[in-house]
């Protein structure tokens, strides 16, 4: 308090930078660690920091695909599943959110309640019957087994309904007077206007689906049908001594979501905070 303001301001800033950098190093340590192990070559005794920094083995990322061709199949599976679920959730949520936001009908509150009620049922409480059901349909080791159960989301319905309700209702009535059908209104006016909310839902859903573990673990059995998340953990089991390819595969699998985070951070943040804070 008694020191000159300029001095205290500079030192405060320095302290903050030191703390920020220190925290960043701690938080990024596991990622550095993974990268360090990946680049050290095929050694049974890796070190925290590569012994020879001039001789890093960047070829390991290509070697993963050559030594373990199933990795590309896992990535394809995860992409197909995450993309289909994302598109599906966007479609089913928009349709239902439209009905809840624009149509006037008896029992609207009940419909909303039934949708939101699914949030009260944890995944684990439905897991066993769902597993038995999917098995009885012969959907194990198929895309539909991985996709169909996740094609609707109460969070998505609610998020889009809230967003649709902020858009002027006059627009809707004017469009109807002009002879626009409801489906057409949803598709050519509401969807373009709601791009921010749809982007939020898309980023959130893609990330969540890409990172799924428990369900794909149960529903896939053969190596070619595994998704990336399950794949990298079985990798670990039969190749526990080969650290470099294992870590390289893990990094490759993390890349899509890390890129998505950097590009879609705003959407993701608004999605996560929308329900949590101000509703």
């Amino acid at each position: 308090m008694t020191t000159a303001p300029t001095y205290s301001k500079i030192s405060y800033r320095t302290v903050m930078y030191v703390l920020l950098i220190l925290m960043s190093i701690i938080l990024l340590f596991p990622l550095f660690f993974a990268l360090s192990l990946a680049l050290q070559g095929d050694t049974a005794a890796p070190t925290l920091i590569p012994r020879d920094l001039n001789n890093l083995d960047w070829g390991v990322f290509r070697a993963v695909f050559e030594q373990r061709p199933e990795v590309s199949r896992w990535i394809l599976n995860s992409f197909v599943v995450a993309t289909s679920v994302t598109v599906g959730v966007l479609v089913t949520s928009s349709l239902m959110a439209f009905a809840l936001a624009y149509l006037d009908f008896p029992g609207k509150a009940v419909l909303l309640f039934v949708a939101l009620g699914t949030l009260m049922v944890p995944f684990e409480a439905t897991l066993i019957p769902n597993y038995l059901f999917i098995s009885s349909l012969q959907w194990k080791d198929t895309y539909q087994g991985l996709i169909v159960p996740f094609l609707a989301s109460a969070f998505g319905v609610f998020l889009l309904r809230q967003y649709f309700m902020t858009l002027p209702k006059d627009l809707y009535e004017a469009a109807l007077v002009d002879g626009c059908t409801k489906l057409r209104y949803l598709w050519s006016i509401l969807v373009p206007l709601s791009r921010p909310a749809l982007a939020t839902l898309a980023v959130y859903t893609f990330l969540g689906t890409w990172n799924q573990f428990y369900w794909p673990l149960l529903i896939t059995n053969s190596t070619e049908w595994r998704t990336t998340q399950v794949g990298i953990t079985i990798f670990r089991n039969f190749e526990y001594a080969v650290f470099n390819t294992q870590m390289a595969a893990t990094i490759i699998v993390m890349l899509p979501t890390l890129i998505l985070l950097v590009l879609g951070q705003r959407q993701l943040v608004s999605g996560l905070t929308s329900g949590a804070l101000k509703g």
Partner: protein
Amino acid sequence: MSATPIPSSLNAAAASTDSVKVNQFSRKRLRELGMALLFSAPAMIIFALFTYVPFFRAIWLSLHVTNPAGEPARFNGVDYYIRLLGLDGRTEWLEYIGLSFQFALMVVPLGILFSLALAMLATTKVKLIEVFRTIFTSSIAISLASAGVIWALIFSPATGATTWLVDLLNLNSISLLNDERTALPAVAVMSVWAGLGFNFIITLAGVQAIPQDLYESAAIDGANRWQTFRRITIPLLSPTLLFLTIVNTIGSLQAFTQFHVLIPQNSPNVFVYETFLSFWYDNRYGFASAASIVLFVILFVLTVVQYRVVNRGVHYQ
């Protein structure tokens, strides 16, 4: 951690739909009902097939001894529940539930304290702050499976990254994960790291929602940083922190992936993982269904508390 954001303004929204009294079943409204059902059908069919029907089927299965195909073979009443709650004198399942709560007790306070510290750091007005914020958020993009695989090597004796800790604690095991005393804390540390991104985002949003003029008037009154933090930030952030406490507790009790990847098969594990073992390896579908219903009840209570907390937070604003 994959916590689903819970909508909070449900009550207000539902109440505002029908403020004007109209004929409940006019022809126009009935026609729109048909249309609404059509529009809602895709989502509702999925909700019915994969949430409601299986939920009731789980309750039904939990009252039966099942055959290896998962069909009810013999009515069993509430025997499985008695067994799970240790009312027949065998308490190992109570211990698994206890382990789950111990785990939550480690993860939740640590995770919230860390994210609070990160959020305070991230509100400083310095250059490049956006970069630091992205770094602090990064763990949200990293799946529990990837995190688990990396941390398994951090804890592995082969890489030696945590050997110093094993020596320091004088453990007789080869790694933290192989010792009964340190296995759960080790998984907790990994889970705190994995959950930080989410907790940080929510805390930061909470901090940023605090009106700036409160800080300005506190500065005029000569309050120092600690007083401002203690008297303004913490009280105004308390709804956010309560929300995080409950969401994180729910998430910790549901934790599965990290236990699957990190904990050796034969050591006692948390409730959700033991449930998995009982149906996956032993085909005890009825018993595991009962366990999943017990988990449902625990989480349901927590969720109800959460709705209360969040709604109170909204009323406050």
